[in-house]
């Protein structure tokens, strides 16, 4: 175990780096701002590596714990720690931040310092969410992370960005305010503690559990997003700049799912069992119905956004199977989706930067002009469709296996979604990449440059690695998931 406060570093290094980048000021210093941002994001990533290498896989409890009093008036503590469930997301988040900084390197020419600073600060805040073990600390990070994303969508987004930014902010705020009241209720019930780990042990009557579950669920379902509160996501994705879409899909969507695992399941086990049917039903609707919605999209970004909702449906489905296979599969799916959806949005960004259109109809025959790009894009499309040997397969397959034990028809519906997934992914790919060169925009396309190749290459390695050898990912989560499920199996009603 390291003696350094690694988790604090993981949170505060990007935030401080963000403030430093912000201080470079106007666009005259843009090259400096970019270099500083890259340096900061790499430094932030490096400090998270010891979290993985130093992680004790036999220990299902919290590791790298830091505990300091913050606001004694309400017994609020600066309490950090990671277990097998949250550790990977901290690393993933730090990794994606580097990708995002690199992705905006040439594309963003306007308010460069603010752009990079917003992403760095956002990255730190999201690490805070994944590592908080205090309810209020979690909430504070959870809500504060809305500010940078609101600005990212609103300042650097597309034509309809204002609408999207407001919708995003107010939707998420609505969910989290009820969540805040639920936290206060738990504070009072537990006799004055905001510690999440103590809440795990707190007995609560079933009626109260149901109410709390619903309050939690609204907050997390909006973030995931689950059907029917998903409508903010396509708008936000379409209008956000490429970097914003990557962060949104790769990390921000994981916050809601993570919340289910950290709050809903262990604090409210009885309500979770009681209402699992509801969650499973909503997840299946997301998987099947949203899959069909994705099929008919004409805007590539919208298509990938809807496919994200469908993929996140697998995640919530896996959680509420209450089996190790289901939960681990869902977690693998979350990490995998981080790589794959990030890469998909980057690919669309690459084409958008050249043609300034996201409409599928504006493309065709791209392979003739961008062979290297087409090959990599192919890999990610396959991963998005859940092809074996890519990371997308592992998670979905595990969830479906878990579902078979739970209920055959649930598994059947979930499995059918893999076909829909293949359909919308490959059909889009076919229309955009193959065929004859469709118009003069495509004619003028130039293949990806070294920077773009490097970004896609790194993501491709990650996708294949997870697909071929998922062991390093699953072994860290195993002990924690087992602990969690043992916990969920015990009733809290007294």
């Amino acid at each position, binding site marked *: 175990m390291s003696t350094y406060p690694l988790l604090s570093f993981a949170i505060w290094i990007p935030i401080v780096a963000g403030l430093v980048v912000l201080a470079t*000021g106007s666009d005259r210093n843009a090259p400096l701002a970019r270099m500083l941002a890259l340096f900061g994001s790499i430094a932030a990533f490096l400090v998270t590596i010891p979290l993985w290498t130093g992680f004790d896989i036999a220990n299902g409890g919290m590791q790298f714990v830091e505990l300091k009093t*913050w*606001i*004694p*008036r*309400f017994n609020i503590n600066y309490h950090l720690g990671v277990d097998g469930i949250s550790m990977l997301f901290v690393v993933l988040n730090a990794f994606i931040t580097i990708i995002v900084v690199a992705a905006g390197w040439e594309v963003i020419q306007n*308010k460069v310092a*603010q752009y990079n600073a917003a992403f760095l600060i956002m990255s730190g805040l999201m690490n805070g969410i994944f590592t908080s073990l205090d309810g*209020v600390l979690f*909430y*504070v*990070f959870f*809500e*504060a992370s*809305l*500010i940078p994303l*609101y*600005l990212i969508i*609103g*300042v650097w987004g597309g034509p309809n*960005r*204002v609408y999207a*930014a*407001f919708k995003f*902010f*107010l939707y998420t*705020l*609505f969910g989290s*305010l*009820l969540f*805040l*009241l639920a936290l*206060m*209720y738990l*504070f*009072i019930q537990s006799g004055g503690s905001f510690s999440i780990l103590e809440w795990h042990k707190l007995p609560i009557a079933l009626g109260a559990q149901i109410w709390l579950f619903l309050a939690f669920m609204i907050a997390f379902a909006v973030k995931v997003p689950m059907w029917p509160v998903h409508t903010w996501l396509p708008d936000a994705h379409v209008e956000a700049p490429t970097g914003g879409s990557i962060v949104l899909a790769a990390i921000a969507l994981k916050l809601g799912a993570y919340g289910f695992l950290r709050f809903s399941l262990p604090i409210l086990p009885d309500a979770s069992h009681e209402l699992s049917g509801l969650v499973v039903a909503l997840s299946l609707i997301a998987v099947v119905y949203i899959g069909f919605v994705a099929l008919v999209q004409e805007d590539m970004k919208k298509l990938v956004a809807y496919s994200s909702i469908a993929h996140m449906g697998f995640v919530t489905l896996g959680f509420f199977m209450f089996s190790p296979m289901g939960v681990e599969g869902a977690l693998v799916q979350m990490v995998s989706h981080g790589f794959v959806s990030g890469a998909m949005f980057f690919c669309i960004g690459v084409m958008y930067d050249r043609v300034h259109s996201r409409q599928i109809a504006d493309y065709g025959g791209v392979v003739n002009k961008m062979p290297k790009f087409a090959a990599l894009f192919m890999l990610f499309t396959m991963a998005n469709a859940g092809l074996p040997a890519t990371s997308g397969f592992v998670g979905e397959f595990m969830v479906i296996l878990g579902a078979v034990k739970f209920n055959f028809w649930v598994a059947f519906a979930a499995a059918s979604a893999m076909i829909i997934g293949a359909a919308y992914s490959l059909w889009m790919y076919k229309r955009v990449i193959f065929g004859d060169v469709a118009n003069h925009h495509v004619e003028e396309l130039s293949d990806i440059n070294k920077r773009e190749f490097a970004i896609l290459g790194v993501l491709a390695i990650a996708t294949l690695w997870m697909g071929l050898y998922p062991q390093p990912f699953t072994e860290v989560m195993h002990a924690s998931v087992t602990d969690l499920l043992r916990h969920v199996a015990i009733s809290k009603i007294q």
Partner: protein
Amino acid sequence: MFDNFVVPDLLPAAPELFLAAMALVILMIDLLVKDSRRTVTFVLAQLTLIGCALIQFSTSTGEITYTFSNMFVDDLMSDLLKLFLYMTVLIVLFYSRGYIIEREAMNKGEYYVLALFATLGMMVMISANHFLTIYMGLELLSLSLYAMVAMNRESVVSTEAAMKYFVLGALASGLLLYGMSMIYGATGTLEITGVAERLYGGGVNKSVLVFGLVFLVSGLAFKLGVVPFHMWIPDVYHGAPTSVTLFIGSAPKLAAFAIVMRLLVNGLITMAQDWQTMLIILAVLSMAIGNLAAIAQTNLKRMLAYSAISHMGFMLLGITTGVVSGDARYALNAYSSAMFYVIAYVLTSTASFGMILLMSRAGFEADNLDDFKGLNKRSPWFAGVMLMIMFSMAGVPFFIGFFAKFSVLQAVVAAGYMWLAIVAVLFSLIGAFYYLRVVKLMYFDAPLDETPIQAGMDMRILLSANGLAIGLLGVFPQVIMSLCAYALLRSL
């Protein structure tokens, strides 16, 4: 012949006496100062406030001390509120200075002297233990403010605002006085602690008392500016010169909180069941009307006026949850959260009007929402400061406004009023919309005019510090939270 005359203990009232004397001295000195050397008056006024703070520090005993035949009380709550009051007025005068120098009609020594008298009025209100003391303080404050609103004589809007303020303010004072007289009729005393004792003793005519209470609460609601007694707020905030709006929108909230505490908590705590119900209605209405009406505004001052209404409503929530079915267990938690809320609000509101002053220049008032368009292009730093102010008002962490809302909501939930907490957060959500809109104007839109900001360096530094305080106190709110809790623990 003078057998009955006892020289009162002047020490507890030393800051008030000092301020009264200095205000008169400054008035005299100012007669000898030319318009161009008005800085002398300004500096003297600031030194007076600092002097008051020092006296407050050195004379504070931490005990509850009554003086002037129990008409005046000095306790930790009043000490703390007064210290924040001096600080607020100091900042307000600082922000105002550049603004009034550019407007000839206002660049008079009277501006500072009236501000000092208003401050004196607030101090008296904060330390009042007698209906007449409260009334005296209130009138001193109000009359000074009426004059300040009307100071820009050439402006028709300001004059109209002053008239409205005066008429409605007089009505409110009438209501308050009528309520006080009823309570006097029922209890036979004007002393607040005396009223409390009589009520404990029992045998008081309840119907007369409740009748008086209704008027008392109405009068207080007028002064706080909560629905349905809020009509004057938007007009006065809008019509008054911005530097005066800044004054009205900040420090008097502290004093209004203090008289609510004195009258309702110190005096009529046994009637808590009755006035809490009234306050809940006022609070919910204020949050509803304040937040909804703010959305429709195009003028920033008006928008902030409606936002003030909703914030005062939110603060009242804290006061309504002190006594739960006769159990005063939650009182300290509830009242200290309300106190923290007021202090946090005053800090934020000062900065928000400070921003308008910063952007204004001779002959131009930056009080339309559109004047903030594209501020991020003109001055990224102050756009950042305004961003912090707006998110703090919306109650988003890491800003002090979040913890203010947090502490009040926590008190509401602890008292078991879950439905009230849900109503409160839903209206906060609506409120978030118009604060976000200001951020949108600054960051997402292109500027309407590219004129650089002309405010002086002192103003820039102080406003930046004010903005940073909103952020820093949002990360470390413990200090002020526990100060409030401790002060009330020693005062109740």
